[in-house]
Protein backbone atom coordinates (compact mmCIF):
# COMPACT_ATOMS: atom_id res chain seq x y z
CA UNK A 1 0.00 0.00 0.00
CA UNK A 2 1.35 3.40 -1.02
CA UNK A 3 1.88 6.12 1.57
CA UNK A 4 0.08 9.40 0.95
CA UNK A 5 2.21 12.52 1.02
CA UNK A 6 0.85 14.87 3.67
CA UNK A 7 3.57 17.51 4.01
CA UNK A 8 1.80 20.19 1.96
CA UNK A 9 4.93 22.33 1.46
CA UNK A 10 7.02 19.49 0.07
CA UNK A 11 8.09 20.14 -3.49
CA UNK A 12 7.82 17.42 -6.10
CA UNK A 13 10.21 17.56 -9.07
CA UNK A 14 9.00 16.92 -12.60
CA UNK A 15 11.35 16.22 -15.52
CA UNK A 16 10.47 18.15 -18.67
CA UNK A 17 11.09 16.40 -21.99
CA UNK A 18 12.95 18.60 -24.57
CA UNK A 19 9.96 18.51 -26.93
CA UNK A 20 7.82 20.18 -24.26
CA UNK A 21 9.92 23.33 -23.97
CA UNK A 22 9.95 26.05 -26.63
CA UNK A 23 11.67 29.39 -25.99
CA UNK A 24 11.33 28.86 -22.24
CA UNK A 25 7.61 28.11 -22.53
CA UNK A 26 6.52 24.73 -21.19
CA UNK A 27 3.81 22.71 -22.88
CA UNK A 28 1.03 21.47 -20.65
CA UNK A 29 1.46 17.83 -21.83
CA UNK A 30 4.54 17.81 -19.58
CA UNK A 31 2.14 17.74 -16.60
CA UNK A 32 -0.40 15.29 -17.96
CA UNK A 33 0.05 11.53 -17.48
CA UNK A 34 0.05 9.37 -20.61
CA UNK A 35 -2.15 6.25 -20.97
CA UNK A 36 0.92 4.11 -20.25
CA UNK A 37 1.27 5.94 -16.92
CA UNK A 38 -2.12 4.62 -15.81
CA UNK A 39 -3.24 8.19 -15.02
CA UNK A 40 -0.32 8.72 -12.65
CA UNK A 41 2.28 11.45 -13.10
CA UNK A 42 5.84 10.61 -12.04
CA UNK A 43 7.64 13.04 -9.74
CA UNK A 44 10.52 12.96 -7.26
CA UNK A 45 10.31 14.09 -3.63
CA UNK A 46 12.36 17.09 -2.52
CA UNK A 47 12.61 15.60 0.98
CA UNK A 48 14.71 12.77 -0.49
CA UNK A 49 16.59 14.23 -3.46
CA UNK A 50 17.66 17.48 -5.13
CA UNK A 51 16.57 18.78 -8.52
CA UNK A 52 20.06 18.11 -9.89
CA UNK A 53 20.25 14.55 -8.51
CA UNK A 54 16.71 13.86 -9.68
CA UNK A 55 17.56 14.91 -13.22
CA UNK A 56 20.83 13.02 -13.21
CA UNK A 57 19.15 9.79 -12.13
CA UNK A 58 16.37 10.23 -14.70
CA UNK A 59 18.88 10.68 -17.52
CA UNK A 60 21.04 7.81 -16.22
CA UNK A 61 17.99 5.58 -16.50
CA UNK A 62 17.52 6.53 -20.15
CA UNK A 63 15.05 9.41 -19.90
CA UNK A 64 15.41 12.76 -21.68
CA UNK A 65 15.15 15.91 -19.58
CA UNK A 66 15.57 19.51 -20.67
CA UNK A 67 14.96 20.81 -17.17
CA UNK A 68 13.34 20.22 -13.81
CA UNK A 69 10.28 22.12 -12.55
CA UNK A 70 8.55 21.74 -9.19
CA UNK A 71 5.07 21.73 -7.70
CA UNK A 72 4.11 21.39 -4.06
CA UNK A 73 1.91 18.64 -2.65
CA UNK A 74 -0.56 21.40 -1.82
CA UNK A 75 -0.65 22.63 -5.42
CA UNK A 76 -1.51 19.13 -6.60
CA UNK A 77 -4.14 18.90 -3.86
CA UNK A 78 -5.70 22.19 -5.04
CA UNK A 79 -6.41 20.34 -8.29
CA UNK A 80 -7.89 17.40 -6.34
CA UNK A 81 -4.88 15.24 -7.15
CA UNK A 82 -3.50 13.07 -4.38
CA UNK A 83 0.21 12.35 -4.13
CA UNK A 84 1.73 9.10 -2.92
CA UNK A 85 5.21 7.79 -2.29
CA UNK A 86 6.13 5.21 -4.92
CA UNK A 87 9.78 4.17 -4.51
CA UNK A 88 11.19 2.21 -7.45
CA UNK A 89 13.63 -0.65 -6.93
CA UNK A 90 16.57 -1.26 -9.22
CA UNK A 91 15.81 -3.63 -12.09
CA UNK A 92 17.41 -4.66 -15.39
CA UNK A 93 19.91 -1.89 -16.10
CA UNK A 94 18.01 0.81 -14.24
CA UNK A 95 19.03 2.36 -10.96
CA UNK A 96 16.68 2.47 -7.98
CA UNK A 97 14.74 5.66 -7.27
CA UNK A 98 13.68 5.75 -3.62
CA UNK A 99 12.47 9.37 -4.03
CA UNK A 100 9.91 8.48 -6.72
CA UNK A 101 6.29 9.48 -6.08
CA UNK A 102 3.14 9.76 -8.14
CA UNK A 103 0.33 12.30 -8.50
CA UNK A 104 -2.87 10.40 -9.14
CA UNK A 105 -5.14 11.81 -11.88
CA UNK A 106 -7.33 8.70 -12.15
CA UNK A 107 -10.39 10.26 -10.52
CA UNK A 108 -10.67 12.71 -13.41
CA UNK A 109 -11.63 12.38 -17.06
CA UNK A 110 -9.06 12.95 -19.80
CA UNK A 111 -10.59 16.34 -20.51
CA UNK A 112 -10.34 17.36 -16.88
CA UNK A 113 -6.77 16.10 -16.75
CA UNK A 114 -5.79 18.38 -19.61
CA UNK A 115 -6.97 21.56 -17.91
CA UNK A 116 -5.44 20.44 -14.60
CA UNK A 117 -2.16 20.01 -16.46
CA UNK A 118 -2.49 23.55 -17.79
CA UNK A 119 -2.99 24.99 -14.29
CA UNK A 120 -0.06 23.01 -12.92
CA UNK A 121 2.10 24.18 -15.82
CA UNK A 122 1.34 27.80 -14.92
CA UNK A 123 2.25 27.22 -11.27
CA UNK A 124 5.45 25.38 -12.15
CA UNK A 125 6.51 28.12 -14.54
CA UNK A 126 5.80 30.76 -11.90
CA UNK A 127 8.11 28.91 -9.48
CA UNK A 128 10.78 28.67 -12.16
CA UNK A 129 13.37 26.25 -13.41
CA UNK A 130 14.91 24.17 -10.61
CA UNK A 131 17.75 22.49 -12.51
Amino acid at each position, binding site marked *: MKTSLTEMAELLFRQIHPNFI*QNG*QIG*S*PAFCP*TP*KDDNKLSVDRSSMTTPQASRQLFVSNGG*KSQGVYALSVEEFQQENLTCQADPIEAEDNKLANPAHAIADYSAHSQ*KEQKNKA*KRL*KLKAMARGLQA
Partner: protein
Amino acid sequence: MRVTVDRDRVRNEFDGNTGRAVQFSLLIELDRHENFRSIVDVYEVDLIDQEFANRLEESKSRLADFHRLAGGWYNGDGEKISPRAIRAAETFLIRRPTFAETYGLFPTEGGGVLVEFQTNGWDISVEFYASGEIEIFGVEIDGRAEFFSPKYQDLGDDFFAEFDRRAEVRRL
Protein backbone atom coordinates in the same frame (compact mmCIF):
# COMPACT_ATOMS: atom_id res chain seq x y z
CA MET B 1 -13.71 34.49 -46.81
CA ARG B 2 -12.53 35.30 -50.34
CA VAL B 3 -10.48 38.47 -50.86
CA THR B 4 -10.39 39.59 -54.47
CA VAL B 5 -7.39 41.72 -55.44
CA ASP B 6 -6.54 42.88 -58.92
CA ARG B 7 -3.81 40.61 -60.34
CA ASP B 8 -1.89 43.50 -61.95
CA ARG B 9 -1.86 45.37 -58.65
CA VAL B 10 -0.27 42.43 -56.88
CA ARG B 11 2.27 41.96 -59.66
CA ASN B 12 3.20 45.65 -59.72
CA GLU B 13 3.44 46.11 -55.96
CA PHE B 14 5.07 42.81 -55.00
CA ASP B 15 7.29 41.93 -57.93
CA GLY B 16 10.24 40.03 -56.49
CA ASN B 17 8.41 39.14 -53.28
CA THR B 18 6.27 36.29 -54.49
CA GLY B 19 5.80 33.45 -52.03
CA ARG B 20 5.91 35.80 -49.03
CA ALA B 21 3.10 36.09 -46.47
CA VAL B 22 0.90 39.18 -46.91
CA GLN B 23 -1.68 41.02 -44.81
CA PHE B 24 -4.79 42.81 -46.04
CA SER B 25 -6.50 45.98 -44.84
CA LEU B 26 -10.17 45.59 -45.63
CA LEU B 27 -13.44 47.41 -45.28
CA ILE B 28 -16.01 44.78 -44.40
CA GLU B 29 -19.75 44.81 -44.00
CA LEU B 30 -21.42 43.19 -40.98
CA ASP B 31 -25.03 42.22 -40.55
CA ARG B 32 -27.13 43.50 -37.64
CA HIS B 33 -25.80 40.67 -35.46
CA GLU B 34 -22.27 41.80 -36.25
CA ASN B 35 -21.54 38.70 -38.27
CA PHE B 36 -19.34 39.04 -41.34
CA ARG B 37 -21.36 39.64 -44.51
CA SER B 38 -19.07 40.86 -47.28
CA ILE B 39 -15.86 42.67 -48.23
CA VAL B 40 -16.63 46.19 -49.44
CA ASP B 41 -13.11 47.30 -50.37
CA VAL B 42 -9.47 46.24 -50.20
CA TYR B 43 -7.38 49.20 -49.06
CA GLU B 44 -3.92 47.71 -48.80
CA VAL B 45 -2.03 44.51 -49.44
CA ASP B 46 1.27 44.59 -47.54
CA LEU B 47 4.01 42.16 -46.78
CA ILE B 48 3.24 40.83 -43.34
CA ASP B 49 5.13 42.41 -40.41
CA GLN B 50 8.65 41.00 -40.37
CA GLU B 51 8.40 40.02 -36.71
CA PHE B 52 5.22 38.06 -37.39
CA ALA B 53 6.76 36.53 -40.48
CA ASN B 54 9.85 35.44 -38.54
CA ARG B 55 7.76 33.82 -35.82
CA LEU B 56 5.58 32.14 -38.40
CA GLU B 57 8.67 30.73 -40.08
CA GLU B 58 9.96 29.55 -36.71
CA SER B 59 6.66 27.82 -36.07
CA LYS B 60 6.71 26.16 -39.48
CA SER B 61 10.25 25.00 -38.85
CA ARG B 62 9.24 23.51 -35.50
CA LEU B 63 6.34 21.70 -37.13
CA ALA B 64 8.78 20.32 -39.70
CA ASP B 65 10.84 18.99 -36.78
CA PHE B 66 7.75 17.10 -35.58
CA HIS B 67 7.72 15.24 -38.93
CA ARG B 68 11.09 13.79 -37.97
CA LEU B 69 10.06 12.46 -34.54
CA ALA B 70 10.11 8.67 -34.62
CA GLY B 71 7.63 6.55 -32.69
CA GLY B 72 8.72 6.31 -29.05
CA TRP B 73 10.01 9.91 -29.02
CA TYR B 74 8.62 10.49 -25.50
CA ASN B 75 10.98 8.37 -23.43
CA GLY B 76 9.81 5.23 -25.21
CA ASP B 77 6.19 6.37 -25.60
CA GLY B 78 4.80 8.85 -28.07
CA GLU B 79 3.33 7.94 -31.42
CA LYS B 80 4.78 9.29 -34.66
CA ILE B 81 3.23 12.69 -35.27
CA SER B 82 0.44 12.52 -37.82
CA PRO B 83 1.12 14.49 -41.05
CA ARG B 84 -2.58 15.38 -41.00
CA ALA B 85 -2.24 17.05 -37.59
CA ILE B 86 0.89 18.91 -38.70
CA ARG B 87 -0.79 20.18 -41.88
CA ALA B 88 -3.83 21.33 -39.93
CA ALA B 89 -1.67 23.13 -37.35
CA GLU B 90 0.26 24.89 -40.11
CA THR B 91 -2.95 25.99 -41.82
CA PHE B 92 -4.23 27.26 -38.49
CA LEU B 93 -1.06 29.30 -37.87
CA ILE B 94 -1.29 30.89 -41.30
CA ARG B 95 -4.96 31.74 -40.90
CA ARG B 96 -4.65 33.04 -37.35
CA PRO B 97 -1.21 34.66 -37.04
CA THR B 98 -2.54 37.16 -34.48
CA PHE B 99 -0.94 35.38 -31.54
CA ALA B 100 2.07 34.08 -33.45
CA GLU B 101 4.46 35.81 -31.07
CA THR B 102 3.21 33.76 -28.13
CA TYR B 103 2.29 30.46 -29.76
CA GLY B 104 4.00 27.42 -28.24
CA LEU B 105 3.92 24.28 -30.39
CA PHE B 106 4.18 20.85 -28.82
CA PRO B 107 3.77 17.26 -30.00
CA THR B 108 1.31 15.12 -28.10
CA GLU B 109 1.80 11.56 -26.92
CA GLY B 110 -1.06 10.44 -29.18
CA GLY B 111 0.61 11.73 -32.36
CA GLY B 112 -1.12 15.11 -32.51
CA VAL B 113 -0.02 18.72 -32.22
CA LEU B 114 -0.85 21.18 -29.45
CA VAL B 115 -0.75 24.97 -29.91
CA GLU B 116 -0.70 26.91 -26.63
CA PHE B 117 -0.80 30.65 -25.99
CA GLN B 118 -2.03 33.23 -23.52
CA THR B 119 -4.39 36.09 -24.16
CA ASN B 120 -6.18 38.48 -21.87
CA GLY B 121 -5.92 36.40 -18.72
CA TRP B 122 -6.51 33.00 -20.35
CA ASP B 123 -4.19 30.13 -21.20
CA ILE B 124 -5.65 28.53 -24.31
CA SER B 125 -4.80 25.31 -26.16
CA VAL B 126 -5.79 24.16 -29.63
CA GLU B 127 -5.26 20.42 -30.02
CA PHE B 128 -4.94 18.85 -33.46
CA TYR B 129 -5.51 15.14 -33.00
CA ALA B 130 -3.86 12.51 -35.17
CA SER B 131 -7.37 11.57 -36.31
CA GLY B 132 -7.87 15.04 -37.80
CA GLU B 133 -10.25 16.23 -35.09
CA ILE B 134 -9.62 19.59 -33.43
CA GLU B 135 -10.50 20.84 -29.97
CA ILE B 136 -10.03 24.10 -28.05
CA PHE B 137 -9.71 24.23 -24.28
CA GLY B 138 -8.41 26.67 -21.73
CA VAL B 139 -8.14 27.90 -18.17
CA GLU B 140 -8.33 31.30 -16.57
CA ILE B 141 -4.80 32.18 -15.43
CA ASP B 142 -5.78 33.80 -12.11
CA GLY B 143 -9.09 32.07 -11.56
CA ARG B 144 -10.88 28.73 -11.66
CA ALA B 145 -12.93 29.21 -14.83
CA GLU B 146 -12.24 26.84 -17.72
CA PHE B 147 -13.79 25.72 -20.97
CA PHE B 148 -13.78 22.88 -23.51
CA SER B 149 -15.09 23.27 -27.02
CA PRO B 150 -16.80 20.48 -28.93
CA LYS B 151 -14.54 18.46 -31.23
CA TYR B 152 -14.41 19.82 -34.78
CA GLN B 153 -13.83 17.61 -37.80
CA ASP B 154 -11.87 20.23 -39.75
CA LEU B 155 -10.73 23.86 -39.83
CA GLY B 156 -14.08 25.06 -41.02
CA ASP B 157 -16.09 28.16 -40.23
CA ASP B 158 -17.51 26.61 -37.06
CA PHE B 159 -14.03 26.04 -35.66
CA PHE B 160 -12.80 29.56 -36.46
CA ALA B 161 -15.96 31.13 -35.06
CA GLU B 162 -15.35 29.29 -31.79
CA PHE B 163 -11.64 30.14 -31.79
CA ASP B 164 -12.30 33.82 -32.44
CA ARG B 165 -14.92 33.86 -29.73
CA ARG B 166 -12.59 32.23 -27.22
CA ALA B 167 -9.43 34.11 -28.13
CA GLU B 168 -10.13 37.34 -29.93
CA VAL B 169 -13.30 38.47 -28.18
CA ARG B 170 -11.44 38.38 -24.91
CA ARG B 171 -8.88 40.83 -26.29
CA LEU B 172 -11.52 43.55 -26.54
